[in-house]
């Protein structure tokens, strides 16, 4: 098997970078660990769950999708080539990898999004099995596992009590990384560590069943009272894909940007004429839960949540979608009695 010392992920990153890969990994940045582009000297941290998700590298928070030259009253559209830089994403958590199935589907059902697809085709995903979880992790409640490998091109498995990492290539892209890694991966034997224990917090089927009959429930108001509408949950979510399109102009050119958006924002559905079909925060929270646990499952036969727990870790008001789902299941069971 292919192995590397768990402290030597930087060597693997350096070897891949030397072979033409842009490398991204969980990197220490001030007090946080963030998935970001690796550069020599960067400290890779696999012991903490990064605050941002892998979606940042496929669907960036802001990108230019249109451009025009301006001349007097005339505009001339210009091509905007998609970004197809060969990229290796290292040590991505299985919950983030699971989210790619949803993003792949959204950006390709019927109409194809070339900006997403170009990045996706150029991306090699190396996941890392979780041997530790925190109180916000709930992948096992939404069909995931801390050591799931589905969707990854290779997986790193912590071994020998965390001293080593086993590098298992799973696809041709993963094999190509082994070739590019050269001496950064050595042959040897190690014993994989047991996966993290992630307790099941709720049954998504129970959530879906309650959602089908309770669009007008008062519980929506109760559940959403704390929400500030800041959007931190959506921005950190590996599956949230809603976006805004905004134009910016100078006297010489215009650009059209696609920016992350959130159904938690009051302006998200506001019409220019003043009408807003989702007039309050409880209607917006309801849409967030409905989208992930009812609309996406109905349409794509996938759950819209992978249990990464980031929304709960980051929410300044202490709300977490896992708590809300657990509350929904409790309400549902109380109704049955």
């Amino acid at each position, binding site marked *: 098997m292919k192995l590397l010392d768990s402290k030597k992920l930087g060597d693997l990153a350096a070897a891949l970078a030397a072979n033409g890969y842009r490398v991204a990994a969980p990197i220490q940045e001030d007090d946080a660990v963030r998935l970001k582009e690796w550069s020599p000297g960067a400290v890779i941290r696999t012991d903490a769950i990064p605050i941002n998700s892998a979606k940042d590298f496929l669907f960036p928070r802001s990108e230019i999708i249109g451009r025009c030259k301006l001349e007097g009253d005339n505009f001339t559209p210009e091509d905007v080539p998609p970004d197809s830089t060969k990229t290796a994403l290292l040590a991505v958590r299985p919950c983030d990898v699971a989210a790619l199935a949803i993003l792949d589907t959204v950006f390709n059902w019927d109409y194809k999004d070339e900006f997403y697809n170009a990045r996706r085709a150029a991306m090699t995903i190396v996941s890392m099995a979780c041997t530790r979880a925190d109180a916000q992790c709930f992948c096992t409640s939404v069909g995931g596992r801390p050591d799931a490998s589905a969707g990854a091109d290779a997986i790193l498995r912590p071994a020998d009590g965390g001293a080593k990492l086993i590098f298992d290539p799973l696809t041709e892209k993963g094999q190509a990384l082994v070739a590019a890694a050269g001496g950064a991966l050595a042959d040897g034997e190690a014993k994989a560590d047991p996966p993290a224990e992630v307790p099941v917090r709720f049954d998504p089927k129970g959530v879906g069943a309650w959602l089908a009959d309770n669009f007008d429930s008062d519980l929506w108001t109760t559940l959403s009272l704390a929400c500030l509408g800041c959007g931190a949950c959506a921005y950190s979510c590996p599956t949230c894909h809603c976006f805004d399109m905004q134009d910016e102009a100078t006297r010489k050119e*215009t650009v059209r940007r696609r920016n992350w958006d959130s159904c938690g924002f009051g302006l998200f559905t506001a019409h220019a004429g003043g009408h807003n079909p989702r007039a309050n925060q409880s209607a917006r929270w309801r849409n967030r839960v409905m989208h992930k646990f009812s609309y996406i499952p109905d349409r794509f036969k996938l759950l819209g949540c992978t249990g990464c727990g980031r929304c709960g870790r980051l929410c300044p008001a202490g709300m977490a979608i896992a708590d809300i789902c657990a509350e929904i299941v409790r309400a549902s069971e109380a109704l049955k009695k």
Partner: protein
Amino acid sequence: MTENLYQPMTMKIAASRDEAPDVRTVRLEFPDEPSRAAFFAKYRVGMFGLYGMPGAGESTFCVASPPTRTEYIECTFRRVGRVTSALADRDVGQTLTFRGPYGNFFPIETWKGKNILFVAGGIALPPLRSVIWNLLDRRAEFGNVTIVYGARTVADLVYKHELAEWAARGDVKLITTVDPGGETPDWKDKIGFVPTVLKQAAPSPAGAVALVCGPPIMIKFSLPVLKDLGFPPGAIYTTLENRMKCGVGKCGRCNVGKFYVCKDGPVFTVEQLQDLPHGDM
């Protein structure tokens, strides 16, 4: 190289007409024959597009001209915000952008021989105007055409010269109305709200379909009238609008319950919508 999904085509404003205060119709010409042919290969009546001005953005409207008029498209919009103001500031001879056609359409091929009732209010006639002209351009294939159209005031009625044209035709029954107080001294047609006028007109539901489009309050009170007249919910169609950005089922904002207006709509039957838990979400 794959195509940029969000790249609009540039279209020239061939004509422009002010319909009512702040309401304008523009006629747009295709940049070349392949883009014209590609549009009309796909376009069915009821579909929408995103009309834009670089630097301001894009806004969603139906295509207000029918697929039977294949040299151009028209759209009618009200100047409300940043984008519609930028569109309205463009003159004949200048260009705008367009992406589309997107969404589903009115199944008019299944309506052959049927009587068609249109119920519209104010700025909501444009989505139905394309259907009206589509049927009139293929007049012999359809039964009676009845149009009940109202606006707050006489000035707010859109397509005034086309209303006159329809009124003068022997094969269209047109009833126009204005809200009480909205009439002018020389106003000859009805005074009253659309639902009331619809009730008085009492069109027969036999072998008929109804298309309803208007402000929420008009729809709210017109649907019970149609129900009392005997129109089943599966024979009543409407076309929805919501704020959109992408138009192609990705940006995630136009959903009404489980339906994406851009992909599952904009055309829905009342039967589909009454299954939704809440009408306006």
